[in-house]
């Protein structure tokens, strides 16, 4: 695995890997598996996205069709780290039980914790999230915690032992991108664990913006799965993630009110009418 912990070449793209718990990722894009047409589309989208970590939900077996193929058949576990989530839980207890069930199936300590406040906004409930984080950490889980972009709430979750803080750029599935870059920027200053922007990503530039802010990664699902062409969008998100990450590392030019010529100001031919401005 250490072989992959450094992107080999070329030198000008050298980057460190994203490390979460025991896992080392060279791709900083985490992808969900919901809303796809079928397992085949899911499989193709994951592959094209270049992701190394995919999140899945826990639900009651459909007792009628439960015998059929499982989502797990579509996900090559030698290739992808599976990150079970507690999507749909509205209290800490349900989230903890859901995490335990997932661990029993997948034999992983990883969990993407979601404790939601209401089904309309799907925004995280801070109280239930704090409670569940504390309990899951006690039970030995590696908790990647979905939260709002409240910087001090992120600090509290890190203090409780979360291995990654996952602020929503905007509400789940809203496609509004990063509504408050300033909050993400401050959060990045305050916490040490990886900050992964989760939820709200609508299109490629949203991913690029998140990475340019310095996020350690981006997790998205609807943005790809509900695009008119999911596979094409999977490729777009992959490129946007590398573009944003590299731009962050490259050090962008500062913003100015105006003008900074990219051509030399000297050596202009003599103007017919007016003298050179230079």
């Amino acid at each position: 695995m250490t072989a992959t912990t450094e992107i080999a070449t070329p030198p000008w793209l050298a980057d460190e890997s994203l490390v979460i718990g025991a896992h080392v990722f060279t791709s900083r894009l985490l992808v969900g598996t919901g809303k796809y047409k079928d397992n085949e589309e899911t499989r193709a989208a994951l592959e094209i996205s270049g992701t190394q970590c995919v999140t899945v939900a826990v639900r009651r077996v459909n007792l009628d069709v439960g015998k059929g193929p499982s989502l797990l058949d579509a996900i090559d576990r030698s290739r992808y780290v599976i990150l079970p989530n507690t999507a749909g839980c509205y209290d800490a207890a349900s989230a903890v039980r859901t995490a335990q069930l997932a661990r029993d199936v997948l034999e992983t300590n990883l969990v993407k914790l979601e404790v939601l406040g209401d089904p309309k906004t799907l925004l995280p409930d801070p109280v239930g999230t704090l409670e569940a984080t504390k309990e899951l950490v006690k039970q030995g889980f590696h908790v990647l915690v979905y939260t709002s972009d409240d910087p001090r709430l992120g600090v509290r979750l890190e203090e409780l032992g979360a291995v990654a803080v996952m602020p929503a750029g905007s509400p789940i599935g809203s496609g509004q991108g990063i509504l408050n870059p300033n909050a993400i920027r401050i959060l990045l200053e305050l916490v040490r664990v990886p900050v992964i922007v989760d939820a709200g990503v609508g299109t490629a530039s949203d991913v690029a913006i998140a990475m340019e802010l310095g996020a350690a990664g981006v997790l998205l699902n609807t943005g790809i799965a509900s695009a008119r062409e999911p596979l094409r969008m999977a490729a777009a998100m992959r490129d946007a993630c590398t573009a944003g990450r590299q731009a962050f590392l490259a050090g962008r030019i500062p913003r100015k009110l105006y003008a900074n010529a990219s051509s030399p100001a000297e050596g202009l031919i003599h103007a017919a009418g007016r003298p050179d401005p230079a």
Partner: protein
Amino acid sequence: MTGCETIGIELNGERRELARTSVAGLVAQLGLRPEVVAVEVNQTLVPRAERERRELASGDKVEVVTLVGGG
């Protein structure tokens, strides 16, 4: 014989009558692939390793879950 004794449980929210059996037996009866499901009885996980041992009793609330697409 106890063999023909039946119990009533709540399975994923629906009442079910079935012959007394273990959690493992239930999963088998349901025709599910044991490696892709997890089982909870009365809101407590029954780890895979204990499914054989764990007998179901009347009134048990049983949840059988698997992994599905989600974000």
